């Protein structure tokens, strides 16, 4: 697989696109060398991040722009593992970082689980505001076993 950028797509903020992105992420992470549980995990994180953008950043509008980029990132020194990075960019209002905490799992109520799934799935979850856009950076590192087979 080539170094650097692996995939870059723009999609409308239409929930019917979610299964398309899930399909692409599944194939890409399989090819990258992740195990089946890791493939499911990364796919779920990206799906949840897109869902949050569609619901909260764009308030349910179907025609706003979302950019999704997948990259192979530099090896992490400590573990010598390669990483799969997903960058999601939207042009909605600035997000209050305090709202990115998610809810306590002890509470039994609908909603608020998406961020929990994202944090549970990924090694790095970073949010920043840049040039009028919300940028979410997610990274998952290959485990040593996955790296051997890659």
């Amino acid at each position, binding site marked *: 697989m080539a170094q650097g950028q692996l995939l870059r797509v723009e999609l409308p903020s239409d929930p*019917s696109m*979610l299964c398309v992105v899930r399909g692409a992420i599944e194939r890409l992470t399989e090819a990258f060398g992740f195990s089946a549980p890791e493939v499911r995990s990364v796919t*779920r994180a990206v799906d949840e991040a897109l*869902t949050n953008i569609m619901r909260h950043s764009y308030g349910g509008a179907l025609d706003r722009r979302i950019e999704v980029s997948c990259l192979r990132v530099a090896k992490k020194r400590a573990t010598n593992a390669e990483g799969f990075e997903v960058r999601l960019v939207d042009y909605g209002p600035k997000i209050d970082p305090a709202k990115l905490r998610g809810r306590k799992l*002890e509470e*039994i109520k*609908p909603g608020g689980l998406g961020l929990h799934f994202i944090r549970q799935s990924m090694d790095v979850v970073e949010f920043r505001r840049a040039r009028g856009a919300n940028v979410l950076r997610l990274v998952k590192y290959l485990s040593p076993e996955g790296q051997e087979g890659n």
Partner: protein
Amino acid sequence: MLGGKPLQISMRALGATTVFDVTGDLDLAHSPEVRKALLTEIKEKKTLKVVMNMSKVRYIDSSGVASLVEGLKASRDAGTRFLLVGLSPAAREVLQLSRLLKIFETFDTEEAALAG
């Protein structure tokens, strides 16, 4: 619809029980449909036992989980029962991750749910 596979929900009445057969991905595109069907059956029709057959649900996200939790809360408020049947490994994994699996009555087969 641009890229999504349509969700299919069919409904069977078996005495005082209603069984929903759901096929497809339970994500943001489709969970509102499931939520509406569940809440209509539980809150408006006040069906005593609602069984959700999820054996053909391949994927479920947080919005799908939220719909199930709403169904469960509505059934508790109404004093009725809401049961899940045939959870796929992926659906079970998501409910476990959210620590919500234990709050649902789950059964491997429809027969067991109907008898339970």
